[in-house]
């Protein structure tokens, strides 16, 4: 449904935001672009939604090249933007109605569909009020409803929960998770919240500095770190502690440091030998073991190991 090949964006001024990325998204798949601010996620969505011109490479939605057939690509997709993008002085219903008209939804279907979406997203009591009176979470739910009015084949969600308080964010995640039941719809989601990506996405591409540095299912990405990891709070230099552990053959290339914390994937090795070695070296103020999370995958790929290699 989405095909991206060697897509690149060089902005005026020489900033290369996206450095030749490739990925495909299957119909009905929920695909996540995960990365820190400045990784190139929003630029990628901008190119796929035809609001940013690619410098080179190709991107297709359902076979339509976004640069050569932008109207056709836009006709089958909808976007929920990172920032609020609504007409605040108009009612919620009018905002949805304008979308329906521009996307050529059958007029007979528009009102029932708006009423249905308003009910699903908990907006029935609000939808005839001006959007300026909505809370942040209500407005974001309205934007999701608006994107769904045209029953898009591809839905882009650009950091849909950023800036929302935890309760509203949790509610909204439930709403987005509910979209998975619409099997005919492909979803491309960007986020820098790892729990969001793990919960919602079938596959995740981790972006860093304009490149995709990992692409797989959440389970497969986690499996790269094994069943257990060892986490140390180190005394002195984390780098020297890492070197000492490497010298003893206790850690491999996949260990990484963030601040004063040293994280060691254990794979199939037991924690006992590693803990004994750490105690013998006297380099740690605290030692713990836990199961790996996507945070670990993300930090390993985008943290100091990559920075050091750059």
């Amino acid at each position, binding site marked *: 449904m989405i095909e991206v090949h060697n897509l690149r964006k060089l902005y005026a001024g020489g900033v290369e935001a996206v450095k030749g990325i490739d990925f495909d998204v299957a119909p009905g798949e929920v695909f996540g672009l995960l990365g820190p601010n400045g990784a190139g996620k929003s630029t990628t969505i901008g190119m796929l939604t035809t*609001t940013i*011109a690619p410098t080179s490479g190709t991107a297709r939605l359902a076979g*339509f090249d976004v640069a050569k057939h932008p*109207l056709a690509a836009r006709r089958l997709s909808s976007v929920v933007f990172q920032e609020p993008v609504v007409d605040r002085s108009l009612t919620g219903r009018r905002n949805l109605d304008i979308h329906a008209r*521009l996307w050529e939804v059958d007029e007979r279907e528009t009102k029932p569909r708006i009423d249905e979406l308003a009910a699903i997203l908990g907006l029935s009591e609000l939808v005839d009020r001006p959007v300026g009176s909505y809370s942040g979470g209500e407005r974001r739910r309205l934007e999701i409803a608006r994107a769904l009015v045209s029953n898009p084949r591809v839905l882009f969600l650009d950091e849909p929960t950023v800036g929302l308080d935890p309760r509203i964010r949790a509610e909204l995640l439930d709403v987005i998770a509910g979209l998975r039941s619409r099997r005919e719809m492909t979803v491309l989601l960007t986020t820098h919240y790892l729990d969001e990506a793990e919960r919602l996405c079938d596959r995740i591409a981790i972006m860093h500095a304009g490149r995709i540095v990992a692409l797989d299912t959440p389970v497969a990405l986690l499996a790269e770190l094994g069943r257990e990891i060892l986490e140390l709070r180190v005394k002195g230099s984390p780098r020297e502690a890492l070197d000492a552990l490497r010298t003893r053959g206790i850690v491999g290339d996949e260990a990484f440091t963030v601040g004063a914390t040293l994280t060691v994937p254990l794979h199939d090795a037991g924690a006992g030998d590693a803990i004994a070695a750490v105690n013998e070296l006297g380099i740690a103020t605290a030692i713990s073991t836990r199961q790996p999370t996507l945070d670990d995958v993300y930090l390993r790929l985008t943290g100091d190991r990559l920075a050091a290699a750059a």
Partner: protein
Amino acid sequence: MSAATATASLPQRRAGARAFASLGTLTARRFQLTARTPRELVVPLLTPIMFAMVIAPALKSALHTDASYESFVALGTVGLLIPLNTMFSGLGVIVDRENGAQRELLAAPIPRPLLVLANLVVAFAITGLQVAVLLAVATARRINFDPTVAGIFWFVAAAALFAIGMYGVAEILANRVPRQEEYIARVPAIAILPWFLAGSLFPISAMPTGLTWIAKFLPLTHGLALMRYGLLGDRSGLHHIWGMGDATAMAALSLLVLVVFATALTAGSIRVFTRSALR
């Protein structure tokens, strides 16, 4: 799925009908947004009405001119109303970009020039309404006009083309400056300064030669001369520009200037918008 297959599966409405329907939706939206901002409707009307109703009679009395001067100034104030109103309309573009739904519209399956044309339709309609109000108030104040059918054509054509061109200026400026404050700061230079040079309150021949020549290149000078020719039968404004004897020929030439002005600025505004919208 290939692009060709997907194209075949799309609704087969003709592109023209589709664009027209989208233009209608965008225009209705802009009307609704504008109607909720009374500032855009009322403020531009205040200064011209004050000129026509208060200052022109006062000048007539103080300068001991006759009633025709009131008519002269009343039409001169149309040359202030149109730029003020179109420039205020341009503010809506910045509001749309900063706090409105412009990005949603850019992601819609419509040709992007329609966004500019919808704004133009609304600015044009509101300007027309305001000009009608100004002339109605002037008539109620017993300021005399002498319209003929041909005269009304010249007036309407001049006012319409000038309004279209000025909205192009507003749209270009709105897409060039990042904030409302910077936009507002430029409005006097664009909307008011030319008004003093274009023969609004006195004939351009009353100015020093250099300024008279500058005035001949201002679209507003041509617009005002045509409007006065149309509603007052006064060909002196056209003569000061062209120096010819045939009034119809001079009117046609000034109309041509306004056609070029309106066409160039509208095309320019669409180009600037579509370029600024696509990063």
